């Protein structure tokens, strides 16, 4: 990687075999855990894809350290461990943001659900009040008639 001007000049720190083995074991356990969560209906498939990809990435990093070193060089980082940490941090940041987006969507859905329920109850109340529906249908005209 000597064609990269900044990173190549000084001594590089690589992952040790021990680190790689530990990482591979953790990655395998991680993916097994995700499979188990899906199997027991604790995690929906659509939210599991991203975690599975993360697990595979971890495994790939452990199996082919050259990949990580390439990335470290591209980032201009001498220490492969630092590159690894940065990548993982960025990934987690992205995931957290992703969850905020999902949460916002669900909050909006919950709000609408509550509103629908409240209005439904109000309509029930109006129907009760007007008895058989012949008098006092103040708020009960169907929308189609008006629009």
């Amino acid at each position: 990687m000597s064609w990269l001007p900044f990173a190549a000049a000084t001594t590089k720190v690589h992952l040790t075999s021990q680190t790689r083995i530990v990482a591979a074991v953790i990655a395998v356990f991680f993916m097994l855990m995700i499979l188990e969560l899906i199997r027991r209906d604790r995690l929906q498939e659509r939210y599991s894809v991203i975690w599975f990809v993360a697990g595979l990435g971890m495994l790939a990093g452990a199996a082919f350290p050259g990949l990580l070193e390439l990335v470290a060089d591209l980032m201009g980082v001498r220490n492969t461990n630092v590159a690894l940490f940065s990548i993982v941090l960025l990934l987690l940041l992205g995931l957290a943001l992703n969850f905020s987006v999902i949460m916002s969507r669900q909050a909006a859905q919950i709000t609408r659900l509550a509103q629908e329920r409240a209005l439904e109850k109000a309509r029930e109340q109006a129907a009760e009040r007007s008895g058989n529906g012949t008098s006092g249908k103040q708020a009960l005209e169907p929308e189609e008639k008006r629009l």
Partner: protein
Amino acid sequence: MRTLVFIPAWNEEASLAAVVADVRTHLAGADILVVDDGSTDATTARARECGVLVATLPFNQGLGAALQTGYLHALREGYDCCAHLDADGQHPAAEVARLLAEVEADHADLVIGSRYRDPEAAAESDDYRPTFSRRIGTSVFRFFLTLATRQRFTDTTSGMRAANRRVMSLFSENYSPDFAEIESLQLAVREGLRVEEVPVRMLERAGGSSFLTPLRSAFFIFKGVVVLLVGQFRPRQHAEVKR
């Protein structure tokens, strides 16, 4: 012209009955809907005792969600115009009637009741005295909202408004849950709707207490400014062409 007056209420059992009675007196032709925003007191029971329709949200979700419930109801049930006022007794129904008249005459799509618009009237009557933190918040929001909309607004957080069907269809789909008052004005102006302020008389609150402590006020103001900034970059929905 079918008119709906809705009253968002959160723990307002003390003042609600008087507000409903006031609306009945001054807006005899209008239907009334109380939106109980997950109150923990007897707000819903009081409203039912008054014989008005009540939409009770199952849990507290903030003023924005409560107001949106009202707009949604007005839209779906085919009302020609709607108005809302606070449940704490600050807003005289006679003033709401004036706002509604503006909408009915088609002078504007959305009419805001402003307690600051008419400085002479404000000085004359001692009815409404804002607190210090509210005064700061008011001027900050006034400045930023005027900047964002290029239209002069004096009472940006006023909860006394009247609207037509254009506004109903816009607000029932796009309404900020935490920043109801200010963002909705920005939204309406951005969407090309005619927004107008009418000077009104407001009273001291009859019951309940304001949620604004100084620290909360500061946070409220900060959040409001951020929301306004972000709102400037939202995609437009072209509500002015929908009716």
